[in-house]
């Protein structure tokens, strides 16, 4: 009872203090008449036969009013839903019946009532894909080619890999760590880049780093619930980490589809697929000592490759930079966890850990994994 009271008193004082500060408004004397800080971030752009639609999030110090909209230096009618002032942190749709021109660039300027102009560039105007069954099917197909197919192909090396000895095993595990290292860096950079385009209130890079760290710690804790993961469990963790990465990759392709900025030709799709074959090999590596049932291969393929399809759909339909960055940050945390566990597993497999770490097989595998990922990534960079 007394202890409860001891807890209650500081809580009450704290609450009272906040109310007092709020009523006092101690910053009032600093008010020099400067207009409030305003910020608008465009999160989505849709181009269709009715014109241009943009999802705009306000991030200023106060609610703000979109007074006029100019497209390509011309004032244009628009409707806003919901109408009125845009409260801090909320998003509204601005619909502009503007006759955009296929393949050309357009510049949308949103003018607030204080006269601040926020510009949004549409680099290449192409109709935004609609959520039609046909469109979703095509995207699922592309997602399957860049996600499911390469993982399945990689796993098909499993029977051949089973014959390898200690050195070969070391090489394969190190190769897995190498490929994961590339994915970790790639994903983190991608997440940071995306988060930079998000509204300031999401605190882009802090959100990415903290999410990745939290995800890493949580997965480590879950993974170590019943000792150190190995064998099938470790394979599933790798598949999960890679799956989250493929979700991010799907987001990127879907977003590019929606923006029309990447001419996603067969070449690019094949590049993605080749790039991802290593992932299947990596997933297979920790299972070489056991004889897993056949269904696990299907499950692992789905877990690692399936998210690419989901990412495609999300990226083309419900894209917003902060959510994409968040997904990638989760993936980065997951990848880091898998790297730690695969490395630990690799060390446990060898009696002399120091020697194993810098053996030609391990070093070669790690650098080989990095190099292969780096080289194949070059194919798909635009």
């Amino acid at each position, binding site marked *: 009872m007394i202890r409860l009271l001891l807890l209650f008193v500081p809580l009450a004082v704290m609450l009272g203090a906040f109310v007092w500060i709020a009523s006092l408004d101690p910053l009032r004397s600093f008010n020099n008449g400067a207009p409030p800080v305003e910020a608008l971030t465009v999160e989505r752009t849709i181009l*269709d*036969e*009715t*014109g241009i639609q943009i999802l705009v999030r306000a991030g200023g110090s106060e609610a703000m*009013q979109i*007074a*006029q*909209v*100019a497209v390509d*230096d*011309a*004032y*244009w*009618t*628009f409707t806003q839903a919901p109408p009125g002032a845009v409260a801090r942190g909320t998003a509204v749709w601005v619909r502009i*019946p*503007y*006759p955009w021109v*296929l393949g050309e660039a357009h510049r949308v*300027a949103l*003018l*607030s*009532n*204080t*006269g*601040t*102009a926020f510009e949004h560039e549409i680099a290449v105007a*192409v*109709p*935004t*894909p*609609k959520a039609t069954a046909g*469109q979703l099917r095509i995207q699922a197909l592309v997602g399957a080619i860049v996600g499911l197919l390469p993982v399945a192909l990689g796993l098909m090396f499993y029977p051949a890999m089973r014959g390898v000895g200690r050195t070969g095993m070391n090489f394969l595990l190190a190769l897995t760590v190498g490929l994961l290292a590339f994915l970790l860096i790639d994903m983190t950079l991608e997440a940071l880049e995306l988060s930079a385009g998000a509204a300031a209130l999401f605190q882009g890079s802090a959100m990415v780093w903290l999410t990745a760290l939290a995800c890493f710690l949580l997965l480590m804790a879950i993974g170590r619930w019943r000792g150190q993961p190995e064998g099938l469990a470790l394979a599933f963790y790798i598949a999960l980490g890679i799956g989250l990465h493929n979700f991010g990759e799907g987001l990127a392709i879907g977003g590019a589809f929606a923006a029309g900025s990447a001419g996603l030709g067969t070449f690019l799709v094949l590049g993605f697929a080749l790039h991802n074959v290593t992932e299947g090999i990596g997933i297979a590596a920790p299972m070489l000592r056991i004889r897993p049932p056949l269904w696990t291969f299907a499950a692992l393929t789905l877990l690692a490759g399936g998210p690419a399809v989901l990412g495609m759909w999300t990226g083309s339909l419900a894209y917003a930079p902060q959510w994409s960055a968040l997904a990638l940050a989760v993936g980065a945390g997951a990848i880091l966890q898998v790297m730690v566990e695969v490395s630990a597993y690799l060390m446990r497999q060898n009696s002399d850990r120091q020697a194993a770490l810098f053996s030609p097989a391990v070093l070669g595998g790690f650098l080989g994994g990095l190099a292969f990922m780096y080289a194949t990534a070059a194919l798909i960079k635009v």
Partner: protein
Amino acid sequence: MAGHDMSAMPTDPYAAPMPGMAHGNMTTVGVVDHDRNGFDPTTMLTEWETGLTDLLPDGRTLRTFEVAAIDREIEIAPGIFFPAWTFNDRVPGPALRAKEGERLRIIFRNYGSHPHSMHFHGIHSARMDGVPGAGLIGPGEEFIYEFDAKPFGCHLYHCHALPLKRHIHKGMYGLFVIDPDPARHPENAAVAASRVLGSPENARWQELAMVMNAFDINFDGANEIYAVNTVGQAYMNAPIRIDKSRPVRIYLVNVTEFDPINSLHLHANFFDYYDTGTTLTPTLRTVDLIMQCQAQRGILEFSFAEHEDGMYMFHAHQSEFTELGWVGMFDVRGPEA
């Protein structure tokens, strides 16, 4: 072309390219509260400030104007507010109008937060120039400019405090018209008389005061709003009523900051132009477009007498300016319509 379905488009070749996309979509949204602004672009067209007159011992007229510099936020397009510096609470400032040969006295008071002045285009002494050291006064101060009204023409005045760009584009400018004295121009007495405000010859004219201006609302050195008499698209939302039985005379001045020139193009008609208004015969005849450098000004004369009734557009022929607000309509009808 997936998603960009051409079959849904209208078959009428003159129709808008997309459903509902008439030309009328290129416009600002909403209306400006002229009452809150304290000035209305429509009434500004015909509002002349003639001051108070007195007789000097030598028989000449002494004309006295009072002008005050006042800081004031104004609405320059629906929902867009601009922290202006004004002459007499309006942008452009009052359209001052005098007659050739009069003695002019302008009592200038600075209620603003910065030093300001009135620099008149015309002829005067160096002491009356409105530049630093000659009539530039600080907040709370007063100065009296005094000079003779000459030469006749369509001039302007503006603040000449530094930095000049900032003081001008904040709104410190206005028309300064000196009507010709018919007695001094016997060869063109009728034309001169028609320009003297209040004369019987002047009564049949429809005279309009137009100041081409623009506003850089985010202070990036480029204008976001272009207008005549401050409010973007004001004369699209409220077309200017023209009685087609009477001729039209426009006193036009360009004070657009940041762009080297501005222009006026009249649809479906041609006009005579008097550059700077200092001549009684046109300097350009039968043109449909004139351009003006900053501070350049002139008088346009035209008539819709032979035209059918309707809406006749006028606008800057820099399309960019047009699309950013500098566009208006003449609503041309007979006197009875």
